[in-house]
């Protein structure tokens, strides 16, 4: 299927959206944009950028605008975010935009499941290059509507909570993972955020026109003000004394990576159990592009036993091996739990190992759970 104008309004980051603008008589030159700076789509775009980066979601009021106006507001928002030059802001923007698309797909699912399946399938194939096949297969009491190749499923689900999204908790047959439409819509998020992030990062704006530069400067200022500095300094035990798995996670976190749920759980339980104050643990996660303080606080406090009473212990090494988080090196000896690493290593004797970085695809993770 080809996307209609209404759909392109919600897919403003793809090439066909740009083509629609040209068909509707909107040139895309920077000069033209600046000349039209008083148009409503500009204000909507500047707000869209701010909402996405600072609030983590895009205002639903956009939905009432004509498709080309929505696309234009995205273009303005993307230019502003790009002009901040701040990779964290770009990631936040991409994630919020991906969530917006997801919400639009959910609305479609609620109104017409058949149409939604066609649309989802088109989004998977045209944007992600993945084949989401429509099926009608009943397995036991469950009815599945779509399936996706195992390899593609793994790449989209890797940062999601394994208790729901791990393939062990999915029906996998013949190399295809069976799903309902809602799951297929949710699974899009990381792949779409990745596409948007790449799209925005690749925009070249050598000398942004004054209005864009101003909006970007304002947004930049706000981002810097609210995004706390690296929290590593707040840690009382020196970082070299952490076991390699923890050092590896901290490194990834600092590189702006959205960590899988399992990695976040490990980091939080470890820090809570070595006695790091809850606020400091939360601050660690604030480096994450999908940081949501409210949710993180709730989860960290839960882990610390401040809610519900039970304090969670650090997962044992075999579990971490199974989750792909173990970065064991010679310094680990035969400890069974990362927490034992500190007990057996006197201060300053950490050394060894480089945090266990491995080859492989590590980028592009966006996590469902905000912890």
């Amino acid at each position, binding site marked *: 299927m080809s996307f209609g104008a209404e759909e392109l309004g919600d897919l403003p980051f793809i090439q066909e959206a740009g083509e629609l603008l040209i068909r509707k008589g909107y040139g895309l030159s920077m000069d033209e944009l600046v000349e039209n700076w008083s148009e409503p789509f500009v204000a909507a775009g500047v707000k869209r950028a701010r909402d996405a980066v600072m609030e983590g979601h895009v205002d639903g009021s956009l939905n009432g605008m004509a498709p080309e106006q929505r696309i234009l507001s995205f273009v303005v928002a993307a230019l502003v975010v790009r002009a901040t030059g701040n990779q964290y802001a770009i990631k936040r923007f991409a994630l919020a935009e991906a969530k917006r698309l997801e919400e639009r797909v959910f609305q479609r699912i609620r109104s017409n499941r058949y149409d939604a399946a066609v649309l989802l399938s088109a989004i998977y194939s045209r944007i992600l290059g993945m084949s989401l096949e429509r099926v009608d297969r009943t397995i*036991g009491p469950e009815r599945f509507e779509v399936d996706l190749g195992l390899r593609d499923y793994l790449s989209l689900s890797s940062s999601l909570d394994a208790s729901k999204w*791990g393939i*062990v908790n999915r029906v996998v047959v013949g190399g295809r993972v069976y799903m309902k439409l809602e799951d297929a819509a949710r699974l899009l998020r990381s792949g779409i955020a990745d596409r948007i992030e790449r799209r925005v990062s690749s925009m070249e704006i050598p000398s942004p026109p004054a209005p864009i530069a101003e909006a970007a400067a304002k947004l930049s200022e706000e981002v810097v003000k609210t995004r706390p500095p690296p929290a590593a300094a707040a840690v009382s035990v020196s970082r070299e004394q952490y076991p390699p798995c923890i050092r590896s996670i901290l490194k990834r976190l600092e590189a702006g990576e959205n960590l899988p749920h399992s990695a976040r759980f490990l980091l939080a339980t470890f820090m809570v159990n070595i006695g790091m104050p809850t606020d400091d643990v939360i601050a660690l996660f604030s480096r994450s592009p999908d940081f949501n303080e409210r949710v993180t606080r709730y989860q960290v406090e839960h882990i610390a036993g401040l809610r519900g009473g039970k304090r969670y212990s650090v997962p044992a090494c075999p579990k971490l*091996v199974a989750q*792909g988080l173990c970065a064991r090196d010679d310094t680990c000896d035969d400890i069974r739990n990362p927490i034992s690493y500190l007990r057996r290593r006197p201060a300053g004797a950490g050394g060894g190992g480089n945090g266990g970085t491995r*080859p492989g695809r590590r980028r592009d993770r966006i996590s469902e759970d905000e912890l």
Partner: protein
Amino acid sequence: MEERGLGGEEIEFLRMSYREYYYRAASSMWIPRRLEAREVGFLTFDGGHRRHLRFSSPGELIAEILREIPWGVFYSVSLYEDPGNPEMERKGWMGADLVFDIDVKDLHPACIEEHDFYICNDGSVHRLAERPMGCRRVDWVCPMCVEAGRKEVLKLLDVLQRDMGIRPDAISVYFSGHRGFHVHVEDENLMDMGREARAQIVDYLMLNSYNIEFLEGFLRTTEDGLETLAGWPWRIAEVLRQRYGVPPTLRALEALTKGEVETAISSAVRDVAVHVDPQVTMDLSRIFRMPTSLNEKTGMMKQRCADVVACDPLKDAVAIGDYPVKVEISYAPKLQIGGYIYGPYKRTALKLPAFVAAFLVSKGVAKVIK
């Protein structure tokens, strides 16, 4: 390696036997595809390791094997732009085969308690349960070990093919030459999977983080509904069907188990889960034993099992010749290799075929007598 206490004579004997094998097998050695992008590593007879070797052609690799006569030959499951670079980070990772290691020890067959033992410096031999201090454990291998491994391989193949949709011709099964099986998958589609995706595959096979409600939910159906099951829910239902002799709908199970449905499912999960070594599948910087090379733990070769049901590795993987070699054996449980049974032996000197002598010497329980 030193802990086996191999002396000069023993090393010399093994080396000579390996040389004879590698010269004989040179033209039929298995060579990994895209060899030029693989790291090759040798375990040498002085106990050292030579890693980060790069060969641009099969001839070059075989020439080096014949020159070095390594104790073990390994190749990287990963493909690299610069496989010879000693720094892992700089090799330029391009993808990796998907491999699985089934180690019989992890399957805990009853035979292990019977034949594995500890041998101490004073020559005394102890059963596993005694766990003597400062003594060396000797792992043995018997047909029951092979059967345990074979059963697990068949479970693995079923999941890889039926669930993961991997074509049978992309899968090769090997006996490791010691006490396990290696399963290699060469599927271009799966090559670029990183560590975490592989961890997911392992988690699927081992059913480590399965959600009981997920499995239970599939049984909340009619008898006809059970016929539509697939993947793990299907395997679990089949085990329960055999165990209770009725179609295992949730309703039927609740009555039969007196409400202990979850316990019944957990027990079925233990039956169907596939036990692989997670690290081997996930570790992309690992070098893996090369098929048709000899295993330093036994002198047998890593041998293809083209027909998993029918292959007889303890016979087929014998690679060293059968010329007689005189050995003095401190202790050896019964050993069945090459189609015959040898032993058990205790403080004996006798002539044995070279491949049996090589096995016992490699295990550190026999000395060569000139």
